């Protein structure tokens, strides 16, 4: 289990980018009260999805407006075609953790 952040740091309007050792970025979302985590890097280009916008449960990439389902990681809009990796989230004592 890797600790990402505390629940308090999350906000429905802001996506939190957490950088793991080695530079791997994880995007953490609060969506209708539920917490989700995906890779931060878009599967199309070098964009940070944490800088995108959430629309209807999807994360819209800032570069080319491709999108992914935040819950499943499925690519939803071109030019994205490769699914985004998602991580099961567990909250332990007010902290958000993922298993890698």
């Amino acid at each position: 289990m890797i600790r990402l952040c505390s629940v308090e740091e999350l906000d429905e309007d802001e996506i939190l980018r957490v950088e793991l050792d080695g530079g791997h970025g994880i995007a953490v979302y609060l969506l209708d009260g539920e917490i989700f985590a995906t890779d931060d890097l878009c599967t199309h280009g070098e964009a940070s999805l944490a800088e995108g916008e959430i629309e209807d449960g999807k994360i819209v990439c800032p570069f080319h407006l491709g999108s992914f389902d935040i819950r499943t990681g499925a690519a939803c809009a071109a030019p994205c075609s490769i699914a985004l990796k998602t991580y099961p989230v567990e909250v332990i004592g007010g902290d958000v953790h993922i298993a890698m």
Partner: protein
Amino acid sequence: MNDAHRWLNEHPELGSGPIPIEPYIAPDWYEREREKIFRKVWLCVGRVDEIPKKGDYKVKRLAAADTSVILMRGKDDVVRAYHNICAHRGNTVVTETGPETFGRSKAAIVTCRFHGWVYGADGALKHVPSEERFYECFDKQKNGLSPIHVDFWEGFIFINLAETPDASLTEFLGDYAAHFAGFPFAELSYQFTYYTELECNWKVAHDAFAEAYHVDTIHAGSFPNTFSTGLQNVKLMGPHRTCAVCLTLGATPTPVAGIANSIAGASLVTQRAETMLPPSINPDKREDFAFELSVLFPNTLIHVSEGIWFTHQFWPIAHNRTLWEGRYYVRPPKTNAERWAMEHAMTLQRNAWLEDTATMEDTQRAMQSRAKTVQNLQDDEILIRHSAVVVDEYVNA
């Protein structure tokens, strides 16, 4: 000494002869203005608070220089300027929807919608779809956005399209900057903007706003019996110019204007105690001071007054076509009554501007007849005379 000729006495170098009409109507003169003025000097293209957040941008079209400029605030909070053209095949990077286009990007990037090239607010080309299909000679490092010189004064954003500007912004502004230093432009942030394209030369528009001689006749409806003492404190500062416009004391406003004035004092023609004017403005503390009227060469008029400031800008599109933008700023209202009073003042101002712009297209059309070759200026039209002299100097430099 004839007091009716006081400005000529102060500035004999400007002469007193008639002013030729040809520069207002000749396409080839306009071509020289584009090259010698609009592609050379610092131009005021906005305010930093129009793009307050990191990643905010505005694109402004500058027809006179055949370009559009992207002004973008980076993640480092620095505003930079670029030409709005993609390094791939020349499309506009930001799709424009009018003379000004606003946008916002959390990632502080702009994407060309044609093939998806992505540029950062630092100008760098960040992403090229299918990059591997370009050849070795293609260098991403060398294909960022084309930068434009940008600098700032009192929250105003200036750009300069020259490869190497002849002067820094500070040098260009000279005494003009000192004259207005300290006026709380940023605090008076509640604003409205009007803009339209007018079928006239940009100098016809400039001239119509650069004197108060017209007020008694053309503004008889919106501001009756207000202005009559004319200009005071004319100051010519290099290519820039300023003066005080004074109003007649004791003119009775209409009943509704009277109520609005007593609530917000947001109208130019009301008497208001002076608290915020820099010492160089209305230095003699004249009771009838209404507002400072200044021209920041070439195409920006900045007016300041107690609790109010407003600008006019004239952006040439052709020798006989101009984009006019008028903006009016007051302190944000705190109550509904203040809000109403400000709307009232702004509406009056809008009416006055409509009256101002009404003559411009007629003037242009009549000038184009070439039935008259010169205009005859009186002493209080000195700002127009100064403008004609400065434009002539630049064009023939």
